């Protein structure tokens, strides 16, 4: 390629010089386009000075997101298994997109229990879809969105699966991250965010999901229908103990249960709406009576849960939110248009909300007057509803290719 040279001097014209000239021209044209009406005013959101005066020179900066609160939302877009994906940060109060973060293949999001940071467990390759694989944990500051911790995981241990929130999680003190390994053997990786390293892969039996009940204990759900308690030390040494079997083989539990570590409550519906709840406070699994979300008559009419994240739990009000619709059998991951609200303790139905749109995933904020978040992958939109009335209060659209997973803080 031929470099550009000034004819008169023979000196090369630097790219910076050209870029500077182009920028100046662009600014000039821009200023012309914004030429103010006589007497000043506002055009295009800019304050316009009175006639005859120039616009002031602008200062430029990089924004910081506001301090996170219970209505801070993170929406992950796995983009139909693309290797380069995005995580969207949203302010639920304002219904406003605050920022975006880079994520990789089937990323798992975590959010600190005080909201102070968020992060992802992700996988990338050196040549986009191929080449050297790298699994890593990246933790970002909730305000600046700058990385504050970056940990490469040796031996590529991540379970690559359509993103389930409770396959990667934080301990309540936010000092350790736990992630699941599927192959070559089932294990849970213990990552110290303090020491910024993978401590150990802790062997587990054929169990899945990770529910930390305190900083040294977590529960898993096993193939045989029991729960597994794992008690671990800082060095990754662990003891394991199984509970009783609590559901039948043909009671298929959704891949995306709701969990509040602060309440110590796991809420876990089946494909038909039978909803199991496990109280793990005190590091003991106590199985609450399961409730049926739908009567036999409603089941005969086709009412059943459906979507990706089909259940949410509000800690203070002890309310269970279940995404459901009338559907044929084996459409358990197809979107739904309704949310049924139940009292957790009794399973009593309190409300039925017509969202008015197809919804793949739901979540709730944990403040006193919670918001209900309803994500439509097809519309690429997060709808924000009042959780009590069900009324839509705002929405955020253009969320990537196929946004699927909502994460909020249990703050």
């Amino acid at each position, binding site marked *: 390629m031929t470099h550009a040279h000034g004819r008169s001097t023979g000196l090369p014209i630097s790219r910076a010089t050209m870029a500077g000239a182009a920028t100046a021209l662009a600014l000039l044209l821009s200023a012309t386009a914004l030429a103010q009406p006589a007497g000043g005013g506002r055009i295009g959101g800019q304050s316009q000075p009175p006639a005859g005066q120039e616009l002031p020179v602008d200062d430029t900066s990089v924004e910081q997101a506001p301090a996170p609160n219970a209505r801070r939302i993170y929406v992950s877009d796995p983009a139909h*298994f693309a290797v380069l994906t995005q995580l969207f940060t949203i302010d639920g109060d304002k219904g406003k997109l605050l920022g975006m973060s880079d994520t990789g293949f089937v990323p798992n999001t975590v959010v600190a229990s005080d909201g102070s940071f968020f992060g992802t467990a992700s996988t990338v390759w050196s040549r986009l*879809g191929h080449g050297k694989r790298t699994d890593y944990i990246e933790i970002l500051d909730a305000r600046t969105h700058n990385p504050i911790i970056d940990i490469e995981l040796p031996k590529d241990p991540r379970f*690559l699966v359509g993103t389930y929130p409770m396959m990667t999680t934080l301990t309540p003190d936010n000092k350790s991250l736990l992630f699941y390994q*599927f192959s070559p*053997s*089932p294990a849970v990786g213990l990552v110290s965010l303090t020491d910024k390293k993978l401590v150990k892969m802790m062997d587990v039996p054929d169990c899945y999901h990770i529910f930390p009940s305190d900083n040294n204990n977590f529960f898993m759900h096993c*193939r045989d229908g029991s729960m597994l308690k794992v008690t671990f030390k800082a060095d990754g040494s662990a003891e394991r103990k199984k509970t009783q079997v609590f559901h039948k083989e043909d009671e298929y539990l959704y891949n995306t249960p709701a969990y509040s570590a602060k309440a110590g409550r796991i809420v876990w519906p089946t494909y038909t709406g039978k909803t199991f709840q496990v109280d793990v406070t005190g590091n003991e699994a106590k199985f609450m009576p399961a409730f049926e979300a739908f009567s036999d008559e409603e089941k005969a009419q086709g009412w059943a849960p459906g979507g990706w994240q089909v259940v949410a739990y509000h800690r203070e009000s002890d309310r269970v939110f279940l995404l459901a619709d*009338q559907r*044929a*059998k084996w459409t358990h991951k197809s979107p739904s248009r309704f949310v049924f609200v139940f009292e957790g303790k009794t399973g009593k139905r309190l409300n039925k909300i017509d969202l008015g749109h197809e919804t793949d995933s739901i979540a709730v904020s944990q403040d006193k007057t919670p918001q209900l978040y309803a994500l439509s992958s097809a519309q690429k939109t997060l709808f924000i509803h009042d959780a009590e009335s069900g009324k839509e209060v705002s929405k955020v659209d253009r969320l990537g290719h196929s946004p699927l997973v909502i994460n909020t803080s249990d703050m």
Partner: protein
Amino acid sequence: MLGPSRFDDLFETMSRKVAGHTSRRGLIGRVGAVVAGAALVPLLPVDRRGRVGRAEAADAVANPRGKWTPQDHDVQACNYWRHCSIDGNICDCSGGSLTSCPPGTKLASSSWVASCYNPTDKQSYLISYRDCCGRNVTTGRCGCFNTEGELPVYRPEYGNDIIWCFGAEDDAMSYHCTISPIVGKAG
């Protein structure tokens, strides 16, 4: 360190009779063997009765909650009968076929399975979905999300959310598309 093999576990835990204990360190685990183990998955003693694909119903494309209605003439359509539990892209749309991966991708040796109903001969067949790996999909062609007989992740042999690229050449684990070969008759 050699550890217990995931596929050893799968083989071992197809029946809940043996599912109540910790994973063992067996022969397949000692050979390492995602590949060897993965190759066993289609041979596992799958229950072929309970989740046979169904015929006759509303169009699932028009109604996401409608009953699965398979057809036997358009391989690139999501309701083609063999695709009854596919979650991803049909390889036939991307340079492959029902049984072959597109050029440049790597064929996994592991799979998940489903029983799909062929409306033409009115028989159900066991389909062993195999992923083609090692190439990105920014915008996949013929993306489908079918869940006939699809079970939760703790029954992974029927789970279609998993990236089933285990055993692919070069350890390719990025997902590109899925093929739908028949491995036997169901039912």
